[in-house]
């Protein structure tokens, strides 16, 4: 050990107990907190989803009133998007970016602490509305005005401040990630040598910084309309309800890429490892991510083909939207080409990554269908859309996050997880998630609108199937929880490299890595 390291360690104050977490500045501790927070939110949002699936099990209204049902769909969406998927990807970035680029920690450790600790307060504000008169937000996670302004209960202001806080958290997290990647790379780690996960997060962070202020603007205008007599979205006062949708989707479309790009990154790390072969088309992967990020800013109104846009606008948004298929196709082809003539093994992370490629592609193809404007006039706001975005977000983003968890868990904990249980978790999840979401394509095409608490009897079979799948998928995630706890508590010790085919700086460190990941910058050739 060099004297530099000893010097560091002497001055390091080891916080213990609750102080370790509340005053955390270490990227691994903060990453861990992000991941646990997001898992808790995943279970909460999942519980809401089960209420929805229970009510939709058979036709007729059995369990909850329609207004509470709307609260469930709204809070399920908000919690899953802002509470589960986004913080989980930030948690993985916190853990892995410094390890992958050869840094001792994140560039801005105290801001890192702040950006995490805002989240529990933001979500407490949001969830507290359940216990107030008027109830939780019930206007959908897209909170279209004027349903969310003039026609919403007073608790909506809590939702608005919650969203503001989430925005602060995301922006600070993004600044930190950009600062870390641009400043703390090890000597020789040029941009075009960055692991794909780091690249996708660099681009995601710029997306976040660009669009979170737009979301903040939208909710601030709502706040003004609701409390201070403005009429941004109120037609009666000269405002424009459609403006809300433009502003929302200018945020909302990049937002979906904010959730999926880090997932692309995770899968691009895992497939080469288990194919024992370098990632095919590294440069084109990077360019494809950049192209998708760019396109995500100029396609927002494809969510609005039914609002009555001028035909020129509809044509433009249709063409621009379908263009996204090209870079997305490049990514899928590259993953398949990476597997091609490799020497694959099928540990749990690889199984989830393969399922990701297949099921995300199905979601991507239904996305192409939705992008075709004349057909979208039928698909829009039906269960076909629900099927589409759950394929890209659950079997896409969430599956990639699970793949990443299994992949890096031995590095994080120092112990191998139980491979047999991991595989059982994979198979139950993959089968049930398709039983859950695949029938939604059919019910949507047959004419079932989304966000309804009860439905005409011809949709009964599909909803029954979906509900069965939903309950199996939901409860099988408790197995995931058990597997992670088991690995934290012990097991077969993990080697530094963990996986036979793993390449990269993170695998040169011990498992678990030392407190200050790289105290001496490694040399990258």
């Amino acid at each position, binding site marked *: 050990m060099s004297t530099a390291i000893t010097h560091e360690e002497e001055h390091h104050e080891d916080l213990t107990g609750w102080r370790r977490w509340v005053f955390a500045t270490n990227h691994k501790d903060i990453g861990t907190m992000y991941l646990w927070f997001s898992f808790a939110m995943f279970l909460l949002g999942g519980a809401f989803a089960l209420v929805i699936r229970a009510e939709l099990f058979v036709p007729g209204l059995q369990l909850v009133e329609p207004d509470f049902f*709307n609260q469930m769909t709204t809070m399920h969406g908000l919690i899953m998007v802002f509470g589960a998927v986004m913080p989980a990807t930030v948690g993985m970035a916190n853990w892995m970016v410094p390890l992958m680029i050869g840094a001792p920690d994140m560039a801005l450790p105290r801001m890192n602490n702040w950006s995490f600790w805002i989240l529990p307060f933001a979500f407490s504000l949001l969830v507290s509305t359940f216990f107030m008169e008027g109830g939780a937000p019930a206007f959908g996670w897209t909170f279209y005005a004027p349903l969310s302004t003039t026609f919403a209960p007073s608790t909506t202001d809590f939702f608005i401040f919650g969203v503001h806080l989430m925005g602060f958290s995301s922006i600070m997290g993004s600044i930190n990630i950009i600062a870390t990647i641009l400043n703390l790379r090890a000597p020789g780690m040029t941009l075009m040598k960055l692991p794909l996960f780091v690249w996708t997060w660099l681009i995601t962070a710029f997306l976040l910084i660009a669009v979170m202020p737009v979301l903040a603007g939208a909710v601030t205008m709502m706040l003004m309309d609701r409390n201070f007599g403005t009429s941004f979205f109120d037609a009666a006062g000269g405002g424009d309800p459609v403006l809300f949708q433009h502003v929302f989707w200018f945020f909302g479309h990049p937002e979906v890429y904010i959730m999926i790009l880090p997932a692309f990154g995770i899968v691009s790390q895992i497939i080469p490892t288990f194919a024992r072969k370098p990632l095919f088309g590294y440069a084109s992967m990077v360019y494809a991510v950049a192209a998708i990020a760019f396109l995500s800013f100029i396609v927002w109104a494809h969510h609005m083909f039914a609002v009555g846009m001028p035909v020129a606008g509809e044509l433009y948004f249709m063409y621009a939207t379908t263009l996204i298929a090209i870079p997305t196709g490049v990514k899928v082809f590259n993953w398949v080409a990476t597997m091609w003539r490799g020497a694959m093994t099928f540990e749990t992370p690889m199984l989830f990554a393969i399922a990701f*490629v297949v099921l995300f592609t199905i979601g991507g193809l239904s996305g192409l269908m939705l992008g075709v404007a004349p057909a979208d006039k039928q698909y829009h*706001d039906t269960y076909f859309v629900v099927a589409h975005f759950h394929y890209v977000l659950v079997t896409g983003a969430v599956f990639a996050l699970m793949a990443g968890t299994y992949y890096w868990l031995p590095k994080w904990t120092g112990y191998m997880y139980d491979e047999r249980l991991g595989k059982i978790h994979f198979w139950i999840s993959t089968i049930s998630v398709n039983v859950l979401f695949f029938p939604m394509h059919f019910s949507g095409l047959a004419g079932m609108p989304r966000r309804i608490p009860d439905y005409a009897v011809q949709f009964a079979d599909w909803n029954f199937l979906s509900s069965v799948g939903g309950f199996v998928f939901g409860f099988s995630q408790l197995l995931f929880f058990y597997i992670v706890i088991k690995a934290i508590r012990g097991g077969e010790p993990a080697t530094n490299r963990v996986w036979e085919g793993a390449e990269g700086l993170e695998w040169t460190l011990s498992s678990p890595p030392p407190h200050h990941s790289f105290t001496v910058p490694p040399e990258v050739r």
Partner: protein
Amino acid sequence: MSVIKQCLVSHTLLLITMLVAPFSVLAEESKFNMPRGVTEISEEVYDIHMLVFYICCVIGIAVFAVMFYSLLKHRKSVGAVPSQFHDNTAVEIIWTLVPTLILVLIAVPATKTLLKIEVDREADMSIKVTGWQWKWQYEYLDEDISFFSNLSEASNQARQRASGIDPSTVENYLLDVDNPVVIPVNTRVRFLVTSADVIHSWWVPALGWKQDAIPGFINTAWTEVKEPGIYRGQCAELCGKDHGYMPVVLEAKSQADYAEWVKEQQRKQEEAMLASGRDWSMDELMSRGEKIYTANCAACHQANGEGIGMFPALKGSPVATQGSVEEHTKLVLNGLNAMPAFGAQLNDADIAAIVTYERNAWGNDVGDMIQPSAVKALR
């Protein structure tokens, strides 16, 4: 080894189910697929939908076939040795260009149909469609006909929580209304779609499109139905708690039947006008009031008058029991906060009936009443 074999079998089965399911189910159309519809536009939309769907299937099958071949052959357990290639410019150019060509192939018919949908040339007749929480209003601009379309009474009773009524025994459960919108066949009908409160979306799948109803905007859409029949749809944009309970029912009639229907409607409107001009007895107002209250007020204030959530109770409320009947009527006419102005929706007799009912039902027993002529004076 056996685990891998098992994985392999399940994987293959999964793939087969996912790929074959969409094909095998096409035979039984309506339950699995979009309806082909009854207009030229809906048929074109359906054809584009199927074209893109088949293209997606071909792409999916091709990609997954290559991948699953690789998963079978290029596995360590069968002794595969990893090659180390990581680039191939020719292949990468091909798989960028081919999708681009496919997109052009899709864009051509899609553009054609979209232009056809959006061209707004002169129509033979116009109907103004207004979305309300939670019903539709239809105004025939040339015929001076106007009416509201609510969820049918049978569906409304069955849809209440724990109603004890099996939805499968209710005909067209949740897809039936009291007054359907009626149009003649082979006539170009323009719809002027707007909203009185929040955003709704007017959708009949058989017509091939949906159109958002937005307050402050009048969107236009048109249709020309080929065959007489009853076509059912629903509101497609989340519009509050009873979003799931505002179906759209469109009845296309032959020209002759349509003319008959118009006459009938005009006669009904006249009757209603006359009703508003005379004096009503307490019993008449109460029995009409109950009906109108159930259709217009019970969704929020509840049938028992006790309110729910943010919607206040009327039973024992100061407005209905202590305030003057005029103030009460003004509130119903002009609305308050989330409550719409019913003056725009209901005639004088209906308003008089509702106010009288609210003041004397559920033990409110104020004992006073208001006549349609007095309502008229308060407007």
